[in-house]
């Protein structure tokens, strides 16, 4: 089986759950005939997404590739076992999430929630309000425990439903709601505009 240089046409595509049908077709080709082109295409659909997600989880840069490849090793070997009870993206991202937790344990890294919050590191002098908000948000996200951060990222960045987030994180739906509730409260403490909006109580 010679290694082919198959360039993925969807490298920069923003994949969402609506791509599930086409991705399932790719998975079927992998399961049925060990189709390398289908595997490469599916890999490309997730590479950027997982890279960003894992970086958000504070997985070390040198470990990110290993986590992604471990994830797709499972996809390659277990493709025929995917029963379709959930979205394919839920399955794949769930595998990556668990692999990432293992990588974090191995690296003895912990979520940075307990680290002191350095407000001086925020460049509030920027003339661009959006840029400032983005900086605040990034700092706020970094303050979140990894479980809360993932619940928020999966909801807003990847657009998953509450049930899908629960499946990925392998926890009850109510736990997802609680994690996101706490994440929202933490963000309000660091994102001034957000706090102002939520303060508009009747």
């Amino acid at each position: 089986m010679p290694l082919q240089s198959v360039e993925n046409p969807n490298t920069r595509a923003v994949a969402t759950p609506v791509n599930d049908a086409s991705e399932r077709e790719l998975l079927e080709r992998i399961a049925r005939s060990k189709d390398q082109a289908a595997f490469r295409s599916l890999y490309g659909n997730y590479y950027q997404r997982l890279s960003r997600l894992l970086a958000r989880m504070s997985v070390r840069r040198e470990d990110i590739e290993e986590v992604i490849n471990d994830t797709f090793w499972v996809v390659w070997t277990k493709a025929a076992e995917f029963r379709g009870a959930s979205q394919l993206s839920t399955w794949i991202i769930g595998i990556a999430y668990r692999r990432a937790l293992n990588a974090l344990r191995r690296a003895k890294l912990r979520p940075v929630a307990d680290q002191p919050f350095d407000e001086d590191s925020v460049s509030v002098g920027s003339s661009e309000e959006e840029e400032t908000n983005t900086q605040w948000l990034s700092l706020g996200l970094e303050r979140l425990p990894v479980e809360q951060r993932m619940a928020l990222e999966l909801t807003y960045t990847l657009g998953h439903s509450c049930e899908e987030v629960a499946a990925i994180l392998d926890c009850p739906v109510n736990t997802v709601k609680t994690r996101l509730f706490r994440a929202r409260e933490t963000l309000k403490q660091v994102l001034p505009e957000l706090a102002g909006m939520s303060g508009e109580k009747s």
Partner: protein
Amino acid sequence: MTPRIPDTHAEAWALLPWLANGRIAPEDREWVEAHVQTCAECRAELAAQRMVATQVTRDEAAAPQTAASEEQRSFNKLWARIEASESASMPISGTGAAAGGARSSRAVRWLAAAVVVQAVGLGALGLALNGSNRGGGYETVTTVDPLTGSRPGAPAVTLVFAPNTPINTINTMLEHQGLSIVAGPGLQGNFKAELSPDAVASGATAESVVAVLKKDPHVTFADSIAR
């Protein structure tokens, strides 16, 4: 089933992120939207969550993309790992993992095709020899099977080749030992090879070629077959 009619502020509040991202469950959308219409606090929170969603998405879009070359390099590493794993499982074709099985079956089919070509050639040679024998007016001690090239009673060995051994290397190895494959591959990737009359005439035995082949890195298993 009675429709669920939750109307508590806390429940609606908890579901606002999915109202903001458009993925709220259809059965919840109506009542949560109805609640938001009447609750200023939830309206403000929904606006805040939409802002978070916008910021996160913008942050994501602005993030530097990994170079396509880096993605390809990562994929190549994964593929090399898959190939190595499946090659390693080749000798246990039919008993290994699904991936290994598929890989092995392809390699085995390729080797089998090579064996068929070799066997056809040997068969043709055998037929030619038979013809010349008839013309010569004498009988040979053994009769060559026209399909496999096998000679009843010929010294034979069982062989398993290392994964990824080129067919040319296998042919050279067999030629040097005076061996010809007459059967295989078996379930374990094993082949049966017989010594040619010339090799036997020069003193080669199944045991002697097995001793040599066991030292060859391209051979993972070699043993003589009792006649």
